[in-house]
């Protein structure tokens, strides 16, 4: 109840509450005393009164407590609310996206400032406290600031909002929107500024960028000569600055609408433009339109326009937008290029023609045509140089309305064409009437104004001149490069033509030569054919001969082979022969040695006395033995000689000794038979085979003695010193030899029939062997002179010296191998 009472007085003033308390208190005191007096016995009155006092205090305390508590709660609530509000406010203050500050009007200092503000100006809150708002303002904005502040303070304005610049702590400039308003104190007086700043630096930058971009865009348009336009179907046309410029009008003075636009266009192109606009509006995309515009000053400009229908996204009315570009320069350039192409084409075709053509006439015609096609001169002249003269060979174009009596001959150096020829350089004249170089009148009379003369130059040689004239004063020099190239081509072509002419002349001469040569060749060919036939025959003969030769050679080869075989066989035969001789020699002689030896020993009574009868028998034996031996010797000798195994056994000896020996050999026999033997002695040293010489002499003397019955044998010896020969003659007085028998005399095994031959032992080999020995060994000759019945004379001619080595080596002892052989 008490609580209720307190609660029931929420928004009472403190005074009223105190009054109410005092009243209630007074009432209590009054009534409680009364009550107490009535109710409470006296004994308890004192304690009751104390108790009442205490109760009073307790109630008061309780009331107080409640009240205070209430108050406190409210206070707490209020405080809480206030704190909440404070917090909210602070939060708002702090978190605001904008900078908020409270400035004391009087001091100009910042009282309160939020973080954002600090961020914007770049100072810390602490720094801001002592900062004057003016110090952070950009100097340029300071004045305005001051003014605004003053007006605000003066109450002229309630607030102001400006864009201004702050200077950050780091020196940067920030753009802000500053909104300042007043805050009144409790007395209703302006006490503070509330400043709200918004950082619009980015926005400013964007604005700048946009402006710059706009400027760039405008500039770009200007540079590109590209203007933009917008046409809204409310007949509103808007152009960019460049577009105005393109059309040569100014934004200020030109009233732009569709009609006025069309009026700017060249009359001939208007229909096309209107059709184009219609097409665009219909949503077609007609693309680019090229047309001409006429500037106010009459200049014609070429324009290229593009356009499109732009639909608004919300389905609003569409509009057209597009561009227009001044393409006058491009058009001009195109035209120039086209012209250059034409010139190129003409040059090329001329060059091609000249390359293919070698006729001077055709070259000149082609040149004329080409020049006319490109340059369109009123007159063209082509001169050919002949020494110091220029001969006009072509003039044109055909059908030129201009009359001209150009002299067919110019001198080199004379007038413009002559100058070109003499200098080798092109000569251009803009106006021949005023040009001192033009010395002739024909052109002037023909009404020509500008002229060009170009030399036809090849390797510094001027072949001619090409001149062109224009009545309208066309500037030929402008196309100088083309003209010079062209004249160069003509010159080349002419040069070729000239060369070709020379070559043709040579060719004609050559032809003549060739014809003659052909004739000569024909003749030669005839001869050659004949020769060939001969050669063929000879070759054939040669072939045959060769073939024959080959055959012979083959035969020869065969024969040679056979011969080789035969040779081998012969060698074999020889070997066998040697063997035969060797063995014969040994086999036959050995028994004979016994026969002759023993018979001799017995005969000489070495072994005892021998009676006469025995002696006879022994003598017979001995004689037979000796005879047999001589036969064997002869046979072996012949064999040796036939086998070619005899050599000269050369030795020096005294001929006289040999002759003595010869004589002694027959001394006994001759004495027995009562014959006379005369041997001439000659002292001479001979160098030959002594034994063989003796052998022959013995043979001859033996025959002589054999076949002489009476009379004697004479051996004559003579020396021919001049020829180095010795002649031996054995003459006998025997039976002689018949002429017909003399032929066979020296042949082997021929025995001549005579009454003696049966009595006489003979081998038939004697003379044969002697001849062989004399010829082969002694290198001499033998001959006979004889007649039947009148004896014979055998003559030997022997060289004193014979070649051939002595077969002996010198020995310390006597080296003559004394021959123990007995001769028969």
């Amino acid at each position, binding site marked *: 109840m008490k609580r209720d009472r307190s609660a029931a007085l929420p928004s009472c003033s403190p005074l009223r509450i105190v009054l109410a308390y005092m009243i209630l208190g007074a009432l209590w005191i009054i009534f409680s005393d009364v009550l107490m007096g009535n109710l409470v016995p006296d004994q308890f009155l004192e304690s009751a009164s104390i108790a009442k006092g205490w109760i009073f205090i307790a109630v008061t305390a309780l009331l107080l407590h409640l009240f205070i508590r209430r108050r406190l709660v409210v206070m707490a609530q209020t405080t809480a609310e206030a704190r909440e509000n404070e917090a909210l406010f602070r939060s708002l203050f702090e978190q605001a996206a904008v900078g908020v500050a409270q400035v004391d009007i009087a001091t100009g200092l910042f009282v309160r400032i939020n973080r954002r503000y600090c961020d914007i100006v770049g100072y810390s809150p602490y720094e801001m406290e002592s900062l004057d708002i003016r110090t952070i303002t950009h100097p340029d904005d300071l004045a305005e600031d001051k003014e605004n502040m003053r007006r605000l303070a003066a109450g002229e304005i309630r607030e102001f909002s400006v864009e201004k610049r702050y200077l950050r702590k780091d020196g940067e400039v920030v753009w802000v929107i500053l909104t300042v308003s007043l805050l009144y104190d409790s007395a209703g007086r302006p006490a503070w500024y509330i400043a709200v700043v918004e950082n619009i630096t980015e926005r400013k930058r964007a604005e700048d960028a946009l402006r710059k971009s706009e400027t760039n865009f405008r500039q770009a348009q200007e540079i590109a000569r590209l203007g933009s336009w917008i046409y809204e179907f409310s007949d509103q046309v808007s152009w960019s600055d460049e577009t105005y410029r393109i059309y040569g009008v100014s934004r200020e003075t030109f009233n732009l609408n569709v009609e006025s636009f069309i009026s700017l266009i060249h009359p001939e192109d208007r229909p096309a433009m209107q059709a184009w606009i219609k097409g665009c509006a219909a949503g077609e995309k007609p693309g680019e339109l090229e047309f001409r515009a006429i500037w106010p000053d009459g200049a014609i400009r070429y324009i290229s326009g593009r356009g499109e229908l732009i639909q608004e996204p919300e389905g609003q009315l569409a509009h057209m937008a597009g561009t227009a570009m001044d393409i006058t320069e491009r058009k001009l350039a195109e035209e120039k290029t086209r012209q250059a192409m034409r010139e190129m084409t003409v040059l090329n075709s001329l060059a091609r023609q000249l390359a293919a053509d070698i006729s001077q006439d055709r070259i000149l015609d082609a040149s004329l045509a080409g020049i006319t096609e490109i340059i369109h001169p009123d007159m063209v002249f082509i001169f050919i140089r002949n020494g110091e003269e220029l001969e006009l060979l072509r003039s044109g174009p055909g059908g030129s309305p201009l009359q001209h009596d150009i002299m067919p001959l110019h001198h080199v150096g004379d007038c413009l064409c002559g100058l070109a020829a003499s200098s080798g350089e092109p000569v251009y004249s803009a106006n021949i009437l005023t040009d001192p170089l033009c010395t002739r009148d024909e052109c002037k009379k023909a009404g020509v104004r500008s002229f060009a003369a170009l030399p036809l130059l090849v390797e510094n040689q001027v072949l001619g001149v090409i001149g062109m004239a224009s009545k309208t004063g066309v500037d030929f020099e402008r196309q100088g490069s083309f003209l010079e190239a062209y004249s160069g081509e003509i010159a080349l072509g002419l040069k070729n033509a000239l060369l070709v002419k020379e070559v043709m002349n040579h060719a004609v001469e050559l032809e003549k030569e060739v014809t003659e040569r052909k004739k000569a060749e024909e003749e030669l060919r005839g001869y050659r054919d004949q020769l060939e036939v001969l050669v063929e025959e000879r070759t054939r003969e040669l072939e045959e001969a060769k073939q024959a030769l080959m055959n012979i050679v083959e035969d020869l080869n065969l024969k040679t082979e056979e011969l080789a075989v035969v040779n081998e066989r012969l060698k074999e035969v020889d070997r066998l022969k*040697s063997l035969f*001789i*060797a063995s014969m*020699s*040994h086999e036959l*002689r*050995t028994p*004979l*040695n*016994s026969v*002759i*030896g*023993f018979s*001799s*020993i017995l005969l*000489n009574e*070495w*072994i005892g006395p021998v009676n006469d009868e025995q002696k006879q028998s022994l003598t017979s034996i001995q004689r037979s033995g000796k005879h047999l*031996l001589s036969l064997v010797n002869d046979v*072996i000798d012949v064999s040796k000689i036939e086998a070619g*195994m005899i*050599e000269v056994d050369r030795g020096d000896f005294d001929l006289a000794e040999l002759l003595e020996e010869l004589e002694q050999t027959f001394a006994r026999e001759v004495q027995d038979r009562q014959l006379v033997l005369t041997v001439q002695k000659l002292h001479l040293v001979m160098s030959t085979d002594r034994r063989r010489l003796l052998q022959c002499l013995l043979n001859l003397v033996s025959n002589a003695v054999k076949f002489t019955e009476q009379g004697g044998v004479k051996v004559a010896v003579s020396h021919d010193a001049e020829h180095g020969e010795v002649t031996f003659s054995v003459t006998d007085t025997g039976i002689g030899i018949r002429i017909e028998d003399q032929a066979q005399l020296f042949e082997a095994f021929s025995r001549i029939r005579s009454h003696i031959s049966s009595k006489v032992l003979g081998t038939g080999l004697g003379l044969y062997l002697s001849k062989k020995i004399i010829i082969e060994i002694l290198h001499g000759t033998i001959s006979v002179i004889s007649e039947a019945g009148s004896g014979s004379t055998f003559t030997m001619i022997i060289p004193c010296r014979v070649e051939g080595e002595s*077969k*002996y*080596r010198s*020995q310390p*002892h*006597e*080296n*003559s*191998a*004394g*021959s*123990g*052989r*007995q001769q028969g």
Partner: protein
Amino acid sequence: MKTVLVVEDNKDNLQIITYALRRSGYEVIAAGSGEEGVKLAISKRPFFVVMDIDLPGIDGVEATRQIRASEIDGSIPIVAITSYAMLGDRERIMAAGCNGYFEKPFDPLTIVAQIHKVIGLLP
């Protein structure tokens, strides 16, 4: 009495030459082969040697060589007797060291004198 060595395998020839040598006052010793001849020549040191070329075993040429090879001081005269008369035989015989050379058949009456002449002796 001087001794002569006769190297000969043929009986008849040996007989004949022996007669001739004896007649001239020599004593004769005989060898029937080349080898025997060499041996006897070295051991007996004869006055001279009569060497037949055609011998069994080593021939007279070889025997001569061997005798010559064995001689240190003084050489015995050797005369060859042969019935060979081929080319080059003479050279071979003389080259072997023979003092002389005789062909068969020889005259027994004169052979010794001829030998004396060849070996430089006078009888």
